[in-house]
């Protein structure tokens, strides 16, 4: 009998425990691929999100936030499981995350059935926002990347321009490639070579030889880290004469310089953010983030971490506003998230009616020694582009 009493008392105690204290705690779900193919991206974003939660909880407000992390294993069905778990089990009122449009698709749809806000940073397919979901938001999309690349070629480069574009056949990169091709052609800049290559291509020599034959002096590679590594190596081996090498995402991560060393010098890439590129209004916020990040992880944050941070932070700010209005629930959070409009370290963020970011543009960075310099757009740049220059010439 004693045992039973003891058991009963501890059971009741456990039930009561979470409700102690005065402030209120909001539960926010964070879903990223922490294992599987997209683990690298998921882990990067998650680190940023952790900083956002740490910062939020240490600011001394009445509202505390609890981050509940679920790994979707880079799989769509596990993504649905993650969302179900977060909402039905953990009772979160907003979900942050997802990487990869094919995982975000089903995940955000599941969240929509509960009316739970889903804010993603790694889903760029145009079809995601074409679904008419009321709960789906994202901070970045495809046209922003192509616009920045166009701006670099049109406004920064001088002299004769003949552009070759090669692109990974993955939908996101191919989407940018098609966008930039159209934009260049409408600006009367000739695209002399355009070809997509299969993901996991190992030997880029023949493709680079074709680029060489095309006579292009500017090469755009829309791809991922392994694609850049292999194409830069091939270009160097074959002595492809270029005035500029422009990559898309992935160039702007610290590991790019760390791994490639001098071979990364003068490479251009798109980036959402680099250390020190935040618009004036968000400089302080950027500094706080970087300091906290370095303190916690002992390394510089990448753009992925910044994305994860912004995503989580916008969600938490919306939660705080909802809390102040006394409407800290799913609808309240969704309403407040919709009203988001502020300048963040990656630029001004506000959403249109479909959930797309209204003001999103990319930066163009150029690697110089061991640093990223921002060379475009004009108002956020911190150095002039070195042109013509490629690492192997």
């Amino acid at each position: 009998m004693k045992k039973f009493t003891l058991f009963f008392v501890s059971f009741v105690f456990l039930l009561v425990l979470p409700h102690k204290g005065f402030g209120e705690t909001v539960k926010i779900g964070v879903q990223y691929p922490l294992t599987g193919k997209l683990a690298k991206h998921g882990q990067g974003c998650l680190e940023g999100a952790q900083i956002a939660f740490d910062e939020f909880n240490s600011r001394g407000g009445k509202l505390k936030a609890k981050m509940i992390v679920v790994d979707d294993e880079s799989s769509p069905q596990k993504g649905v499981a993650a969302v179900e778990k977060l909402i039905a089990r953990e009772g979160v009122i907003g979900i942050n995350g997802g990487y990869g449009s094919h995982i975000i698709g089903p995940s955000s749809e599941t969240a929509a059935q509960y009316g739970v806000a889903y804010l993603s940073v790694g889903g760029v397919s145009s079809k995601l926002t074409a679904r008419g979901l009321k709960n789906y938001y994202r901070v970045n999309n495809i046209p922003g990347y192509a616009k920045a690349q166009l701006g670099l070629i049109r406004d920064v480069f001088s002299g004769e321009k003949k552009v070759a574009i090669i692109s990974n056949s993955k939908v996101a990169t191919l989407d940018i490639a098609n966008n930039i091709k159209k934009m260049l052609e409408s600006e009367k800049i000739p695209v002399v070579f355009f070809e997509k290559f299969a993901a996991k291509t190992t030997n880029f020599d023949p493709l680079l030889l074709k680029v060489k034959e095309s006579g292009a002096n500017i090469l755009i590679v829309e791809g991922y880290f392994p694609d850049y590594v292999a194409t830069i190596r091939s270009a160097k081996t074959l002595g492809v004469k270029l005035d500029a090498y422009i990559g898309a995402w992935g160039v702007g991560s610290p590991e790019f310089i760390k791994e490639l060393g001098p071979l990364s010098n003068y490479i251009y890439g798109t980036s959402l953010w680099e250390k020190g590129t935040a618009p004036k209004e968000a400089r302080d916020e950027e500094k706080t983030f970087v300091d906290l990040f370095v303190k916690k992880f002992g390394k510089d944050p990448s753009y992925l971490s910044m994305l994860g941070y912004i995503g989580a932070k916008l969600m938490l700010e919306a939660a705080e506003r909802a809390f102040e209005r006394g409407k800290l629930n799913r609808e309240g959070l969704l309403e407040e998230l919709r009203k988001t409009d502020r300048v963040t370290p990656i630029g001004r963020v506000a959403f249109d009616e479909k959930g797309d970011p209204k003001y999103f543009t990319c930066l163009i960075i150029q690697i110089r020694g061991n640093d990223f310099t921002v060379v475009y757009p004009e108002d956020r740049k911190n150095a002039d582009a070195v042109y013509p220059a490629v690492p192997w010439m």
Partner: protein
Amino acid sequence: MGRRRSEKKIAGVVTLLVLSSAFVFRRDPFVAHVLVQASLLALISLAWNILGGGCGQISFGHAAFFGTGAYVSAILTTQYHLNPWLGIAGACVSVVFLSLLVGVPSFRLKGAYFALLILAYAHVLKLVALNLEITKGDEGIFSIPSFGRYSFGGMEVNFFTSKGANLFLILLFLIAGLWTGIWMRGSQTGIAMEAVREDEVTAEAMGIDTLRYKLFALGVSAFFTALGGAFYVHYIHFLTPDSAYSGYWSLMPIVAALFGGIRTVTGPVVGAFTLVCLDEFLIKELLPRGDKLVYGLLFVVTILFFPRGILGTWVERQGHGRKKEG
């Protein structure tokens, strides 16, 4: 014959167990979704085992049938606006047809070579899906319709929002597969298949048309795998070549079948439910980051110590126990 009867008993118990768990958890969407995942894996594992355990033909590429089933139904419903039920039927018919088409030449190969040939098909089909217009390439197909909404009397069943409704549907498929498997094993066909599995040359010498039985097993196996694939798209609503032809659909069914025991019809079902539930409810809870590591360890240990699978080992022990008593 005793083994067959006990197999029926086990299958009955398993049927009751999964059905009752579905009733208990139908209103908890997370558990329901996990059970859907388990049932889906169980269905494909069971289908794989009809060919693998029943007929001795190991396939490493059941994703070929899963993914194609998924694509056929997705295309029929999004581009030709067919009803999902017709989409599923179309998927099953075309995949069975496909399986027989590739089966005739492939069965000339034996053992690991046959297994890998099927794997190669899965890869080829994935590349085809990546490069075709109709499959929308790498972008994949979005907004695939669910099974819809129905009212029976006062009861409303909405497949779009209710995980429970989908759970009952996939369980229906699973139970159909399970009892087809049981029926096959007990029939003349099953005995002929077993002969093919044990010794093909002898079976041929006995006048068994081995190719016919292998094709039959392949057809049935492909049918239920396609059924699973088609169900998947109307449940998840999105399809990309990566998810359709993912190695998960080739590999996990084998793991689940081995885990449960390939010499039994019910083994794969038990294996799939155990693996998925362990992963989602226990390992992930305890180790949110290192869960896959534990998972790997788990099936290494299982294979080492229960090489006949959980259910297989259990059935064997039962048999021994009885022998000793008698």
